[in-house]
């Protein structure tokens, strides 16, 4: 058995969003004293163990808590209860283009994005050519990013995310854009990462790609694990439940 990469134990996350009801003067004043809160359990006692070299899928309906559990793994959200252990250098592609400034050139944004994910200036200098070549954007690199198509943008962002040479990648719906060629290329890169005993956590609404790409998967619903196991069987269960409901 290979070593664990991510161990999440009994993770519970609760949000307390302000309830937005019709504002009245009395309510607004009352809000100053005790804010009207309604607790929302985004993750309810979730435990998973993800191993090195594994591609792990997460499926579930909108609002099931998929992004939330990735944020816990990325350590940008502290769980209310439970512990999370992460062993390795994480690249978090929860959203693409974090740290980018659309007004600035692609060149500048490689530095902004690279520094944001924790690379040093020197490291980016060394990897700059590879990043641009990988994204295949040499002819657009000095143009402001706001003039990029969304596919070009995500290619650049994905390349920057890969540049930190992560051993763990957290992907939240980020491969949905990009053309066929680039998708194939990024899949290839991810397979190489897995072959090097890297770990990928993959959130996607594209069930075929989860079934095909992932070894294991969980199905989350309303913050709880409904099923955990081999990716194909989890996807199959999820699919049958969803089609059953809509029928």
């Amino acid at each position, binding site marked *: 058995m290979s070593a664990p990469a991510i161990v999440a134990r009994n993770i519970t996350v609760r949000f307390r969003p302000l309830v937005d009801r019709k504002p009245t003067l009395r309510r607004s004043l009352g809000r100053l004293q005790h804010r009207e809160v309604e607790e929302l359990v985004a993750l309810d006692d979730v435990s998973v163990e993800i191993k090195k070299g594994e591609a792990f899928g997460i499926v579930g309906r909108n609002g099931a808590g998929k992004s939330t559990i990735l*944020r816990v793994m990325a350590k940008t959200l502290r769980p209310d209860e439970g512990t999370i252990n992460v*062993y390795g250098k994480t690249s978090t592609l929860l959203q693409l283009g974090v740290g980018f400034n659309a007004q600035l050139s692609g060149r500048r944004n490689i530095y902004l994005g690279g520094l944001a994910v*924790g690379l040093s200036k020197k490291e980016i200098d060394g990897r700059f050519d590879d990043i641009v070549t990988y994204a295949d954007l040499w002819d657009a690199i000095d143009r402001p990013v706001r003039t990029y198509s969304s596919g070009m943008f995500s290619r650049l962002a994905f390349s920057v995310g890969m540049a930190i040479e992560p051993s763990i990648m957290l992907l939240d719906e980020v491969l949905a854009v990009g053309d066929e060629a680039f998708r194939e290329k990024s899949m290839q890169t991810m397979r190489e990462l897995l072959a090097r005993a890297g770990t990928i956590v993959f959130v996607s609404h594209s069930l075929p790609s989860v079934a095909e790409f992932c070894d294991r998967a969980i199905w989350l619903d309303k913050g709880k694990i409904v099923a955990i196991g081999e990716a194909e069987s989890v996807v199959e269960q999820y699919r049958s439940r969803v089609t059953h409901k809509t029928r």
Partner: protein
Amino acid sequence: MSGRGDCMAGRNPNLIPSAKRDAAGSLGRRGQDRPYLAIPTPSGGRDKRSVSDTGLWRCLSAVSSYTPLAMSAPPSTVRRLFPASRNYIRDLWARREFAWYLAMGNLKARNATTTLGLMWWVLNPLLLGAVYWLVFGLLFDRGQVDNEFDFLPFLLSGIFAFFFTQQSMTAGVNSITSNAKLLANISFPRLALPLSALLESFVGFVTSIGVYFLIVGPVNGIWPGVQTLWLFPTILLHLIFNFGLATLVARIAVPFRDLNNLVPYFTRLWLYLSPILYPPSFLEGQPAWVHFTMGLNPLNPFLALYRHAMVGMPVDLGGALLGASAWAVAIAVVGGFWFVKYEGRMARYV
């Protein structure tokens, strides 16, 4: 971070129940999820830094809640009680280039679409000075300050210094709330964001000092000299003071967004209540309580020091340095610690 075990504080059960299932029967394949066992920390997961949290660091870290997000290795008792702020400062230091690029990126982006582009760096303080000079120099002709010093250098030195503070606050108040994407995706010492805002305003301020001497040199014959060296301690203290203000407003604005709207009014009031458009001697003849209240303004010692360095006005150097230091340290300590104490929860509110 590679190869090291990272751990978040919290409940630490020895045995983990296997994943809960709502629909117990709906599970196809059980063999796949073996019962979880307590996972021993991998051999590489020891943290060498967990030794000797001593003295000052303990005191500092006692108020820091940063560690739960970024702490490494299973916490020892010492670490649990005194989360390490040494790590915080080290992580922050590792982010210095990021803070700098973020600041410069914002500065560049602001003028990226304008025709004059980077000229605006110089034009902004120039126009700012021109507006106030038109109104308060020409319209309300103040003549000379204390019958001795030209009004123009007096005005510009005060205005430029004040706008450094104002810019730090307006950039600082947005520094967390406008970077929600960074907060949601990447774990780093959040202090890097108000610091970046501070850098951004600092670059503008340094430019405006250059513009100042370009104006008052030919016009009033004030050129940089030995006296000007007093700018260095003054700016240092002013930086610390503005750092405190930026963190303070950044912290408050997270749960209380209204501050974004309030800051411009607050700074305008502060401008009028400070001896910037009028000299301190303007208050002569006022009752004692007015003098007392106006004397509480933290900007007074800073302005006095700037006028000393840039205009050559006499100042009680010891008193001004002491006052400026006291305000700078007090605000920076309060703002900085309060910010760091809160930062673990910030991601939930942006």
